[in-house]
């Protein structure tokens, strides 16, 4: 069976033009997708059935037993952590937040280790952004800052920016200027019209300098700022000010480096400054597929996009305190439910140690790094392949992913709903 306009469940681009050929319960070919999409759809490394570890032996268990065990572990915990959520759909995320409020748990999503700092910056200064089509149809200057879309978002440039022809930009490749700012040369910086090669940890200073230049204070800028020559900074500032429509896309190069969210705050304030002269927008390159959806769902239910602590009944939010890395590093939580993500691969060792120490349950289709740290894993269908639901693109556009075939796996939504019902019964209405 050939299915058109399929939505890719890999990165935040949420490309929705894939053509997928399905035979039975196998995807046999993917057209239009990037390498990552191809791997995602054709991967065949699913965990077969729920598994449970007793000391040093793993053995299969039934779904019912796995669900019951999970509910009991969560009910017994004094400070449970519910982490992950980016690889699943909004409907499952919504159950997750309700489960957290019922349990008095901390719920956090993978923003913690990607664009959490971007959210914190937005909470200080806002976010002048737009949907990706605005960029495609209008932008004549594109800035990638601390981002390497060729490796992380392979079709970003062809669908939305550098190579994407739009209504007002008919010949994108010739009409668009690309500026790249990074601490290392990358495939992306190689195609830039202007590459600012910044010393590690120097982004904040460079952004401050650009802001000062845009404010007409170029004279006080020293001849080099974190490895970037003043002449280049002035040139870049002028390119931006003379743009008809400029768009900055930034990645983890800003969120994870020294200063963290203050880097992004500085970039947002640069964007706001540029709007006095022309139209400029800024957007985070959200990585993990539906991570933006988890921010949205968490927000409308709890008021906060990530790192929400329901311990005192009310919602409390304070990154650095209620974020997963910090809670695990300090050894606070006494049980952890991981859904649709892999902290084992992406958290520092200290955090992994604590996950191994406490009862950790993983709900994920695949054997991943966290599996080895868990006490129980429940395999589920993959949203966008054998289960469907809502996902939010990196620019906030919600799209409904499709179920390409019916498999034998339950969806995470079904599993979570059952856990929720057991907890609800125990806790009372």
């Amino acid at each position, binding site marked *: 069976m050939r299915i058109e306009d399929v939505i890719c469940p890999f990165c935040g681009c949420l490309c929705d033009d894939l053509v997928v050929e399905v035979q039975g319960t196998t995807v046999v070919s993917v057209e239009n997708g990037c390498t990552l999409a191809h791997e995602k759809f054709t991967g065949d490394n699913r965990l077969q059935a729920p598994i449970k570890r007793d000391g040093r032996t793993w053995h299969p268990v039934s779904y019912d037993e796995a669900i019951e065990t999970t509910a009991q572990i969560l009910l017994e915990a004094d400070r449970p952590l519910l982490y992950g959520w980016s690889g699943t759909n909004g409907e499952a995320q919504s159950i997750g937040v309700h489960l957290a409020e019922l349990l008095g748990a901390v719920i956090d999503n993978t923003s913690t280790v990607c664009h959490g700092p971007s959210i914190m910056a937005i909470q200080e200064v806002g976010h002048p952004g737009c949907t990706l089509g605005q960029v495609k149809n209008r932008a004549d200057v594109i800035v990638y800052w601390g981002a390497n879309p060729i490796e992380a978002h392979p079709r970003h440039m062809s669908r939305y920016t550098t190579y994407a022809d739009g209504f007002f930009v008919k010949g994108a490749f010739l009409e668009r200027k690309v500026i790249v700012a990074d601490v290392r040369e990358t495939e992306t910086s190689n195609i830039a019209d202007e590459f600012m090669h910044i010393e590690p940890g120097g982004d904040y200073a460079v952004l401050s300098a650009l802001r000062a230049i845009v404010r007409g204070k170029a004279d006080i800028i020293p001849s080099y700022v974190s490895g970037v020559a003043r002449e280049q900074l002035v040139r870049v500032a002028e390119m931006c000010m003379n743009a008809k429509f400029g768009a900055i896309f930034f990645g983890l190069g800003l969120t994870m480096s020294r200063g963290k969210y203050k880097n992004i705050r500085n970039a947002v304030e640069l964007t*706001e400054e540029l709007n006095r002269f022309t139209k400029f927008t800024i957007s985070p390159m959200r990585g993990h597929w539906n991570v933006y959806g988890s921010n949205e769902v968490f927000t*409308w239910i709890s*008021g906060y996009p990530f790192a929400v602590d*329901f311990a005192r009944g009310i919602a409390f*939010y304070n990154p650095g305190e209620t974020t997963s890395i910090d809670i695990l590093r300090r050894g606070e939580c006494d049980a952890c439910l991981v859904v649709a993500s892999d902290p084992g691969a992406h958290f520092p060792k200290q955090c992994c140690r604590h996950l191994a120490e406490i009862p950790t349950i993983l709900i994920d289709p695949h054997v991943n790094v966290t599996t080895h740290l868990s006490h129980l894993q429940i395999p589920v269908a993959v949203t966008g392949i054998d289960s469907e639901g809502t996902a939010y693109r990196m620019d906030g556009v919600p*799209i409904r992913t499709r179920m390409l075939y019916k498999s034998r796996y339950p969806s995470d939504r079904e599993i979570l709903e059952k856990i929720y019902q057991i907890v609800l019964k125990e806790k009372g209405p």
Partner: protein
Amino acid sequence: MSELLIRNACVIDPLNGINGEIMDISIRDGRIVEEVSGNAQVIDAAGCLTLPGGVDSHTHVCGTKVNFGRYMSPEDMRAGRTARNGCMHVTSGYSVPTTFGNSYRYSNMGYTTLLEGAMAPLEARHTHEEFTATPHQDMMANTLFDGNWAIMEAVRDKDVRRTAAVVAWYLKAARGFAIKLTNPGGTEAWGWGEDVSGIHDTVPNFEVTPAEIIGTMIRANEVLRLPHSVHLHCNNLGVPGNYQTTLDTIGLVPDLNKTRQSLYLTHVQFHSYGGTTWRDIDSKSEEICKAVNNTPQVTIDMGQIMFGRTTTMTADGPMEFKLYMLHRNKWSNHDVELETGSGIIPVYYFRKSMVNCVMWAIGLELALLTKNPWQCLLSTDNPNGAPFVKYPEIIALLMSKKLRDQECALLEPRTEHHVPLFAIDRELDWNEIAIMTRSAQAKALGIRDIGKGHLAPGAEADVAIYPLKTSEIDPSTQYQQVIAGFSRTKFTIKRGRVVSRNGEVIVDGANSTIWVKPKVPEEYNLSNDPDFVRKFQEYYTVRMSNYPVQDVYLPRGVCIETEADL
């Protein structure tokens, strides 16, 4: 079968001409009926003021921009936090509460039906997701067309029929309720960082004017026989001297519909400014109300501001940027490809600020100077003018000259010379308040026929019983009781079920989403139109097949089908 009998209610039901009659209301299976059996559950209203459930015809409670208001404002979430309690979910937030926070607070005030003021079709799915998490109110969404490329092309070609066909396609795709125009043409210009300055400016690259967009859309709206009229946020919001734009706009409106207005102008307070700068701004409410009084085919809502902290959010991107340049706090902007834009900034309205005082006065003046209460509805453009929890205070201000005088004494002293409010003696009565908070809203939205805004047999059993004995309270002096009474119902009944009681939410709730599907002949179905399809696939970043909102997002959808006159 479930039956409920409300005894000894003091009913005001303006759509049925009932004004303060003590009577019983019978409810069976969610509808008002003539009578119920002896097995019915009985509620004794004990002579308390009993109204149809409140209808808010312009509020921002769900969707991309509202949620971004929450997302960017942890400082707002600090206020209003409540823990999970019984069937009540956790709530947070003051000016942009969480969905459950909105729903419970509206419910406590007796509101049962809400119109979300602005939904970009591309992001409609988000609005509908939040609707399902707003359990106590039936929801509808105004659908944004102000910068829609296909609309502007049809308007440029002076093709009302094609305009109607575009509206029909998008309304159905977005599961929307009505046409919303926010600063028509201005949001497209904002795509380049520009704006339009009046209804006769030309929109860059599209060779149309706001006046042409508004005029054509009003006609297309009637061609499609939509229940509601065009819902317009005029150009030049918040600009001194903008009343002229508003008057010009009112001057455009033909009288095309016998059952309701032909144009709904929203938050008119923000559009009634005289003067040329913030220094000499003054109220032009008298001019605006004169035009409204002379133009029965328009209906307005107040857009009242109240002093204190709130968050402004609108599809009017350029206006928010201007506001940001004044406040320098934080600013979010979100342009939506081929359709519209939006902006959000937090604001604080100060009594010390003459401008804010003038704004405050204008809202009240609009309500007091519009002769016919069916033409001026109570709103704050929640949360732009103030969070909706301020409605009871606004009601009290409209009912009491004494309270207004007290408040006026606290205003920035120059205000008196810039507004007529001080000299206005009118005090609205209970019936007029009922009209302005539910009946006229239901009529303006065109949902009376599906049983909203009134209590005659056949109507939806949405009832608000307030702890107010109208015979014992003099609102012109006992305004504190009025505020307390409208803040917290004794009972809020939604579709025949008591959902909240004395401020406590007692059931989980299950709302409906009301949407409109105009039926157009096959030749006007744009899914088959090669030009429309080609442009869609070339310029949108979402494939056409993935664009429409699926039925699964409206688990309790109520579809109003219309037969287009095409």
